[in-house]
């Protein structure tokens, strides 16, 4: 697929990717998801998104070619490709901050390289394609275990690790009340994982009833449509003896609805780096001394958030892109033991050739869509 401008994507023939660095691999894509954060690109909200780029940072595939320095993989391996591009050598990678690699993104220092995520994240083509160049192939890709279904594997490239890390960064202690804003795939997975850390109560907010119903079923959490609550923060206070949640998770990011001022300034006029409604609610709903975990994606400029309340309440705010490689061993174990069932979140499997319709279905939440997987014609599994 290629991006042509806001809300315009299409299929195009592009040259086959080539080895450009001794640690590169060329991977034939067998599954690629559309992520909620792809919608920020799709809507033209991320600066330096260039016409002709290929999106897609959630993909798996088969190794077709390897650079001279790649020793961990062989041609024919089926691999999970983490969405972070990480060198494994810089000071940040050594701390397992694989989302913050300092040797993969020349255009911005805040974030490391990400496949198919504009030139703000390194200018790499993504995996919503038949073939893709995978840099630092010794570091990122993990061979898919024989027993694992490809649909589970593709969900381990981003959705599961990001949801898990959202809960992890919340520092959840046994019995904690966890409020999650957003019932997209990440929010639902964060709800599921909050239990693994011993949460006592998990509450999810969204405006889409079908997603809330799914979240309730999949993650066994309480769900509320914020449209029917008028003020979700007030509701959170009332339902926690007026104290607030121990942990609040922003699982929405820049596309959040629910606040007119945020929507106009953040989504319609781009005066801020996306609508920060979910983050605003998270800060205001947290208990004094509580923790706010942010995995929702925002642009690089600024946002209207109640930082004064965060200071006055003594909140700890943690955020980062998921460090996929770090989390994969534990998460593969969880999938094997049936603790997490990632593929159950996939509602739509669409041929890559119909990518424009796939984006529209996911973006406009049509046909009960939770998660869309694109299947390229070159996929043979």
């Amino acid at each position, binding site marked *: 697929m290629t991006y042509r401008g806001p809300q315009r994507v*299409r299929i195009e023939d592009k040259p086959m990717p080539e080895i450009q660095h001794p640690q590169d691999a060329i991977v034939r894509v067998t599954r690629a998801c559309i992520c909620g954060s792809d919608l920020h690109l799709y809507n033209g909200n991320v600066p330096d998104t260039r016409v002709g780029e290929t999106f897609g940072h959630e993909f798996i595939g088969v190794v077709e070619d390897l650079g001279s320095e790649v020793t961990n993989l062989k041609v024919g391996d089926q691999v999970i490709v983490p969405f972070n591009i990480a060198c494994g050598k810089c000071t940040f990678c050594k701390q397992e901050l694989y989302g913050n690699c300092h040797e993969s993104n020349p255009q911005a220092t805040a974030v490391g390289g990400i496949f198919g995520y504009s030139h703000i994240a390194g200018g790499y083509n993504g995996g919503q394609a038949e073939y893709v160049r995978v840099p630092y192939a010794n570091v990122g890709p993990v061979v898919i275990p024989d027993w694992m279904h490809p649909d589970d594997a593709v969900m381990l490239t981003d959705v599961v690790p990001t949801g898990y890390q959202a809960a992890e960064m919340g520092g959840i202690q046994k019995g904690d009340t966890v409020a999650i804003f957003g019932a997209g795939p990440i929010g639902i997975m964060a709800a599921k994982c909050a239990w693994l850390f011993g949460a006592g109560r998990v509450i999810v907010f969204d405006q889409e009833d079908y997603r809330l119903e799914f979240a309730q079923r999949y993650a066994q959490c309480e769900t509320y449509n914020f449209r029917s609550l008028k003020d979700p923060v007030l509701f959170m206070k009332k339902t926690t003896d007026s104290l607030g949640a121990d942990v609040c998770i922003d699982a929405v990011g820049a596309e959040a609805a629910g606040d007119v001022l945020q929507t106009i300034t953040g989504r319609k006029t781009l005066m801020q780096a996306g609508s920060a409604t979910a983050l605003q609610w998270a800060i205001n709903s947290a208990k004094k001394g509580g923790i706010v975990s942010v995995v929702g994606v925002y642009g690089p400029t600024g946002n209207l958030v109640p930082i004064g309340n965060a200071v006055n309440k003594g909140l700890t705010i943690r955020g980062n892109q998921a460090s996929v490689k770090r989390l994969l061993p534990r998460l593969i174990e969880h999938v094997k033991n049936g603790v997490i069932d990632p593929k159950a979140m996939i509602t739509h499997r669409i041929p890559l050739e119909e990518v424009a319709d796939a984006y529209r279905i996911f973006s406009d939440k049509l046909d009960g869509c939770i998660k869309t997987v694109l299947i390229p014609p070159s996929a043979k599994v």
Partner: protein
Amino acid sequence: MENKDKDYSHIKGWGIDADPKNDPTYPMRKRGNDDHTGYNWDRPTQQTETIEVLHSVERPNVTAVFGTSKPPKGLSGMIRRYAFQFGEGQFSHWLPLIVADRVDAIEGIVEDLKSGHIPNIFAEKGYKAQWKYNRTGVITKVAVATAVTTAVVLAFRRKCKD
């Protein structure tokens, strides 16, 4: 709000990753003193620059690897080069990049037409799916757009007559 008496046996895996020592948790957890030694790690082999790569002024060099999806070109490329003179904390960096993106979209259409390809905007926007799954919404949008356009045209014509 700990509730030790509550039964979570219906939730598979409840508490299996609970760790009272999970504080400070990620991303601070693995922080060590070796991160005080500056930018002097053993860098990976440098990828050859076969295209123009703009890099942040907040770093001294181009990273060891980089993407080559779309080098800057045309008017949008000129605007991007201008934007990259400024630091990442500056609006003078990001706002020109957004302008460049919009110019790039127009350049893309011009390029299509020059190569004899007429872009099918309706297909690119996925309106087929919208029509299939949200027909009422599409009809409503078209009706509202038509009504607004008609009102604007009528108002303009009335103004011209006056």
